[in-house]
């Protein structure tokens, strides 16, 4: 399954891949991580139930609107 992860296309194996799975695979799981799927914030409690679909835009971000 191809997913646009932090701006780059990445391949994730299997179906029913959740945000929790992607956090584990990518080693990105720190307590402060903010997750957006297709531009929408995902609550932490929904990480295990939110299933990623082919072509989804997944971003692990900090909205650091700095400067």
């Amino acid at each position, binding site marked *: 399954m191809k997913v646009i992860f932090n701006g780059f296309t990445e391949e994730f194996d299997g179906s029913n891949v959740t945000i929790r799975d992607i956090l584990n695979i990518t080693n990105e799981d720190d307590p402060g991580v903010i997750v*957006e799927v297709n531009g*929408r*914030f995902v609550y*932490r409690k929904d990480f295990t139930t939110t299933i990623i679909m082919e072509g989804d835009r997944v971003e692990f971000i900090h*909205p650091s*609107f*700095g*400067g």
Partner: protein
Amino acid sequence: MPAAPIGNRVRHGIRLRVFWKERMESTEPIKEYADSDGRYGPVKTQYADFDGIELESGAFLGPLRVAYETYGTLSPKRDNAVLVLHALSGDAHVAGINEKGRIGWWDALIGPEKGIDTDKYFVICSNCLGGCIGTTGPPSINPATGKPYGRSFPLITMGDMVNVQALLVKHLGIDRLHNVIGGSMGGTQALEWAVRYPDMIRSAIVIAATARLSPQGIAFNWVGRNAIYSDPARPCTESDQGDAYQKVGRGLAVARMIGHITYLSEDTMEAKFGRKRALKDVDGYRYSLGENGKEGGEFEVESYLEHQGSTFMERFDEDSYVVITKAIDRFDLEAAHGDLVSAFRNIRAKMLVLSYTSDWLYPTSMSLTIVRALQSLNKHVSFVELDLPYGHDSFLVSAGMPTLTRIVRGFLNGVV
């Protein structure tokens, strides 16, 4: 004896020790709550419309629209309002989840039981004048031409931005704010607020800011604007404004990349990216530049900046970037008032100045210049230098939030 928080350097700590003491003696348990979790819930951006405003340049700008969000409830005495001031690329959406599903940029600090507790304070955040996320700025329609202002938008000052914020505060029926708080450009506005409206604020928190930008800072902004000016897709003068309002070139993305480098520290870059490669050929190296002879960003730091630049183009306007960075460059309280002591003479607010050890864009020395001028006038000022490795953006980074939360909460509690 109450100790200073571990890991933070505390200087000029006389006032500071007072509020730590108050906190230590309180029987109420202190919640360490500092997550970007959208806990405030759904929020909606609101708009206030005004006839216009006379700019410091003497020009009139109108009509004027201000985009803002509020959180919490204004007390019957209207005395619990906190105005949050955003940085260069921020917007009015500071906490909660907006209609687009986006989380606020300082959600970790603002919300129920957070550093700025929305159960206690009425929090306001507005998009700055000259911005592009709801408040009048270059993308707005110029009533004289029926077309967007674009680069013909008048050059504004930090004072103009603050004057517009003051208009909004009065429009909301508030005579005096409990606090104004901001980081980076927002910090300079908090300082400008204290100088310009001494009777309208009880306190100000100035984070990672300066009373005047360094020539180095001006230089980086100039390079960023030059990237935008070099963009062939955009008209340069009002007369050829035409209908060229489309984004073709990547000037703004390049400007953002340059800016972003200045917001991070060398240590952060080393820890976050090192020399890791994002794109590799079989043996770990690349042997060609990639498709169409264009690099795809071989090193992780490159692909990170590339991504930052690209996403920035989706949400920001290049002419706003020009107008706002010009205002940042020209902000200089010393030049405006003769010297800093004269500038600060009428300040009545309790001041808290915060800096970060790894911030080389707005370094601690600049914050200390502010603190010393305030001290020489015997103003109420606290100063904390936080030992965090994340550079100028430390005030936005989640790892720095628990400390910032403790300090901001303690300071706000001490303001009466």
